[in-house]
């Protein structure tokens, strides 16, 4: 996804409920390029009402939520990203 849209898309993987050490180790092992967010107080999950994993949310370039879904529907996520970019300069 990042390769396709480059700097027009920012992907943040927000960890829920794991410690920083574990996440760091796992991230290194996997070699994921995107930034990972660790939130010891769960503040981001709370703000986004995350009850169930996996949850994915796309925020458009205008700061408006364009997609919110429980589960992982890659095609729908890609579509939402594409559509949110379509209206942006």
């Amino acid at each position: 996804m990042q390769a396709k849209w480059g700097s027009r898309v920012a992907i943040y993987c927000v960890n829920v409920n794991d410690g920083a050490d574990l996440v760091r180790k796992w991230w290194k092992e996997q070699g994921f390029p995107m930034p990972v967010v660790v939130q010891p107080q769960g503040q981001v999950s709370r703000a986004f009402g995350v009850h169930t994993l996996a949850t994915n949310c796309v925020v458009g370039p205008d700061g408006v939520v364009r997609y919110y879904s429980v589960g992982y529907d890659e095609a729908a996520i890609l579509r939402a990203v594409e559509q949110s970019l379509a209206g942006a300069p």
Partner: protein
Amino acid sequence: MNALCLALLALQETDAAARYDSALARWKQAAAVDARYDYRMELPAEDGGPGDLLEGFVQVHLARPLNGFVSMLRNGARIEYVADGAMIHAVNHERRTYVELGERLSDIPYALDLLPLRAALGLPLAQPVSVEWLPADAARPAAAGLRLILRQGHQDLWLDRDDALVAAAIAYDSYAAAVVRLQFLRWHTHSEVEIQDYAARPPEDYCRESLFGGSAGAAPGVGTRAPAVVLPVLDGEPQPLSGLAGKAVLLNFWSYH
């Protein structure tokens, strides 16, 4: 072949209960913290004819029992996985049949039908859950939306018309005190939504902490402004979401467990 696959195979054998126990034990012992099982199986038809084909995957997170996941849908059927080996079953709403791949009440604190569960465990029913239909979203005109009003907050589901639709969700409230399962009939052939809701107290050790850092708020609606949060990036500078204006931002909430 992963551990879950072994468990499923074992279940097909005759001595289902014993096989299930041993398969579950093997499954739990395996390091399948985050396993994926791709399946392709045939559901038996009531009339003895060829059954529906069921394809999809089950994603398993064993270490954290409350990480449930609902699998994919095809041909009006689904496999639903409830964490910690609670139950795996396949449902065909069109034919109103289902196959239970494993159950044992003492091992299954939730995810059973309401009545036997309540009778066996003497648990009260959860707060009633209400459901609102959401208007079709411009981005998903071929979908119907449901907003599930949970005890805390809500959760929206979008049901795709072309999924031969059965959709399901397992939603947990933020205190892990209730599990709500909703089953939907094919929405384009039935105007009514069939709902089963039930609740159970998870085992004590599941209740020690909230999975999601305390009381979770409501999900931001599509079309509303995203909450103003700062993303505490691991080994990096905190990133205010507002600082990403001009980009599409994908937030993927995940857990190692």
